[in-house]
């Protein structure tokens, strides 16, 4: 049973435009939501997070939005840069303290 879903396996965006990556989850009890970024042959690296008491968190070009009623979160990257090309994983922190990941979305930013 997939608790965290990223329904788009890939996304292609022009440099300078906005990238929007989406994630859905099933359990309304999750408290923290995170985005990780992964380059080939490297481990995932933490990018940005949001707690369930907020609906938006911004860090430079990256903004995460949380819609608790829809059990949906999204990551916005503005403006997108070629160096942003990577696989992005959405993750939730469950009550047991472990991270549960989605399947990932591969972002390609074209110059």
């Amino acid at each position, binding site marked *: 049973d997939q608790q965290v879903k*990223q329904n788009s396996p890939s996304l292609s965006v022009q440099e300078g435009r906005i990238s929007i990556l989406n994630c859905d989850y099933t359990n309304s009890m999750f408290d923290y939501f995170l985005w990780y970024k992964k380059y080939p042959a490297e481990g995932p*690296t933490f990018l940005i997070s949001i707690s369930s008491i907020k609906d938006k968190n911004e860090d430079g070009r990256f903004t995460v939005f949380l819609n608790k009623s829809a059990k949906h979160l999204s990551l916005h990257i503005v403006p997108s840069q070629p160096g942003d090309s990577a696989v992005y994983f959405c993750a939730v*922190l469950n009550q047991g*303290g*472990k*991270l549960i990941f989605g*399947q*990932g979305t591969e972002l390609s930013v074209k110059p």
Partner: protein
Amino acid sequence: GAGVSQSPRYKVAKRGQDVALRCDPISGHVSLFWYQQALGQGPEFLTYFQNEAQLDKSGLPSDRFFAERPEGSVSTLKIQRTQQEDSAVYLCASSLGTTGYGAFFGQGTRLTVV
């Protein structure tokens, strides 16, 4: 080094062979996690240690998988009698606190069972 270190980076094993994968977490990190990542999928939780105590091993796929962290630092994931379905990238992560929030990941060990 300052990050999570995993070795070997690549391992090819013949079916039926035993393998041991090592993880050196960031010094002082309390929590250590093992994940399995199949091709095109997200990391799947295997097991979790808080210091030397294995608090959750619910993700281990079978009794062929065994993990330990005897001194609360370095951890080893052992897979006995490897099968082709064990082929994956095995990721280790550590965090300073008692949860996986903001955990730092190693580069992973790519295991190929032939």
